[in-house]
């Protein structure tokens, strides 16, 4: 606790208390519900997740190793 106790410090301490009160007043859901939401989201978007499932053929991967192209100028 700092030695300087003026109206500013009181104001600061009051703000801290109000902040915590605000945080306490939030509605909260248990982890089980949140975990299930995360799981459901994953299952819904799994098919769009190419890092997860890979590409059906390598040609669709925009970062596939490129074949070098050579031609002769005649």
């Amino acid at each position, binding site marked *: 606790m700092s030695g300087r106790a003026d109206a500013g*410090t009181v104001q600061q301490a009051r703000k801290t208390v109000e902040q915590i009160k605000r945080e306490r007043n939030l509605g909260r859901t248990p982890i089980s519900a949140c975990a299930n939401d995360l799981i459901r989201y994953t299952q819904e978007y799994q098919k769009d997740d190419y890092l997860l499932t890979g590409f059906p053929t390598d040609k669709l991967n925009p970062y596939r190793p490129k074949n070098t192209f050579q031609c002769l100028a005649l």
Partner: protein
Amino acid sequence: MSEPDTALDSYVEEEKPSTSGVSSTSATASKMPELVTFNDGLTRNLDAVELLAREAEDLRRKLDAERLKLNDIPIQQAAERLEPLSQLSIKQRRILKGHASKVLCMDWSLDKRHIVSSSQDGKVIVWDGFTTNKEHALTMPTTWVMACAYAPSGQMIACGGLDNKCSVVPLSFEDDILQKKRSVATHTSYMSCCTFLRSDNLLLTGSGDSTCAIWDVESGSMIQNFHGHTGDVFAVDIPKNDTGNIFISGGADRHALVWDIRTGQCVQSFEGHEADINTLRFHPNGDAFATGSDDASCRLYDLRADRQVCVYEKESILFPVNGVDFSVSGRILFAGYGDYRVGVWDSLKCVRQLILYGHENRISCLRTSPDGTAICTASWDSSIRIWA
């Protein structure tokens, strides 16, 4: 639903009419008559501060107890019914070489192929990720360009760092685009992170001066600032579905804070990390986020549960995490470590699936491409690598 004001208010400010009387929930209230004296304004204030501090501590303890109750089952248990991840076929596909010193930050363009990167020696380069060509290169008048961002339109980039500013540069194929550089944000210490918010005209920055701020790009004026961190801010992020009114920030005070953009207020705060939070990223669903820290762990926090959900750590992992991002479905969490490796985690089962090797120095930044086809990592080895 809110608690009745404690009678503390009626002691500290005599002008205020006494409120509903001593609250039964506050243990300190019953002790008040003995402690507060009216002899001297200073004594009164000192006691008020102490009483408020005690009330704050009491409330915090209650808050922690409520959060503890929510941990009914660990997420790993809920995820048991899921199939374990099959073999992931992620490999290094591109190396972008061109920086001459540590690359500190990178960002993807929404066109999913262009990348902007910034480095310690002041160079900012715009690359085409598919071809590895450099499309633009500019030299900033400052070293340690710690942050860079691509505007949603793809026509502009933002960058800054040790100059305490964030400047925007419109991209064009004219000779010297640096001429058009404009400074937008100004902080009182280094700028550590930046991102465009919803459009090319709003810029969100975080700084070593422990504040975040939103700026109007056209006028360069500050629209809102956010005070609350008690240490340097190292990272900010906005939800992928950028329609909400919140953003998150994390930093040296080991807390991650959730802010309301309209009011500038901190709406939620999360703790748990044992050292600086270096990076944080929203889960694609917008209701959770992951953080990476100097304590070598990543953590998942959920906004609706208002608490930490799980920790991604292993005894064998000792190096700081400097970049995290999710895959498109959120199932995979990528983490870039100071031991030069990328850890690929199953975010739901909380196990590490894969390690990606390649970089030759610590990883400073990691981001998934906008369509989720690749991740990009930037490193102190002056290279940028794309993995897909």
